[in-house]
């Protein structure tokens, strides 16, 4: 049987070491404002983050949380585009020069269901390129929901050594039972 490439990556499955688990974060009781992967080795070609996660907060909070690379929160260093559907209509938007990349990340404010996310960080250790991520995410709550694609650029040539998922503002938190897994894909 020939293994097939994982969704969103360029590695072939079933070959020892080509798709490796690097680290996992499971959010405990009380939630957290930030989930971080640090000291990411440069020995892979691409990274993939697979997660289920939920944020809560007040109704006035924007329902996303964001990705930052290497602790960089500079407004003009990120740009993103999104294509999605909310069950009624399709939409497209962009976030130019946002203080953090949205990555097509979606959260359900005060909802009962978790969002599933798959985020590819391409050629993350290359010091000659800006960094591109591609994301696919969605949540459904039996009468509401969203399915969304996202693409982001981080306008830095630095190798990525840390990735933070950060809530937009307090009192929003990433809730208990959220689970983030970081994988490395060898090229």
């Amino acid at each position, binding site marked *: 049987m020939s293994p097939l490439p994982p969704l969103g990556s360029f590695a072939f499955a079933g070959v020892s070491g080509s798709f490796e688990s690097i680290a996992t974060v499971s959010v405990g009781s009380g939630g957290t404002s930030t989930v971080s992967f640090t000291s990411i080795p440069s020995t892979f070609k691409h990274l993939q983050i697979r997660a289920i996660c939920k944020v809560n907060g007040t109704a006035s909070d924007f329902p996303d949380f964001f990705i930052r690379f290497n602790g960089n929160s500079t407004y003009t260093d990120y740009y993103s585009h999104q294509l999605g559907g909310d069950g009624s209509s399709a939409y497209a938007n962009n976030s130019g020069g946002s203080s953090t990349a949205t990555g097509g990340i979606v959260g359900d404010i005060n909802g009962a269901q978790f969002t599933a996310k798959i985020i590819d960080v391409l050629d993350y250790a290359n010091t000659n390129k800006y960094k591109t991520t591609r994301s696919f995410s969605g949540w459904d709550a039996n009468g509401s929901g969203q399915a969304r694609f996202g693409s982001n650029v981080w306008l830095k040539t630095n190798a990525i050594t840390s990735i933070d998922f950060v809530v937009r503002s307090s009192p929003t938190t990433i809730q208990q039972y959220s*689970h983030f897994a970081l994988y490395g894909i060898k090229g």
Partner: protein
Amino acid sequence: MPVTYEPIATQTLTSDQTQVTFSSIAGTFTDLVLVKTGGQSSGNMTMRFNSDSGTNYSGTQVFGTGSGSGSSDRYSNQGTMYINYSNATGNSVTTIMNIMNYANTTTNKTVILRNNDSAFYVGAYVHLWRSTAAITQIDLYGSPNLQNGSTFTLYGVKAA
């Protein structure tokens, strides 16, 4: 080095079938990925977990047919999960399904998938199975048939 992304099982149909089943799925992985390629009868391919036929399935999708702007719709309180659609028997319909944290017994189960009918549409779907049970069985259904030659491959992805 342990294999993190591992093939679990493959089924290649040698005749038209109304159903494909993956059973006795071990709870040792983090996510499952199910890849379907090949033809099917005109209509929906649907899916159930653990033989649950209760009205516990819902979903939201975004898709485009190559005509006009993209579209979005949803379903709620159904007895099955609507996975993909073919508008003509024999069209090649490809679907890659990510069944996230399938073995946890705390949260309801979410599936995100991408699919396309080569002659009709491309789309993405998110589904919810309102059950905290670990998934041990996956049943896929044609309407009525999943066609001869279709391939269904189940992978396990294991986090550290």
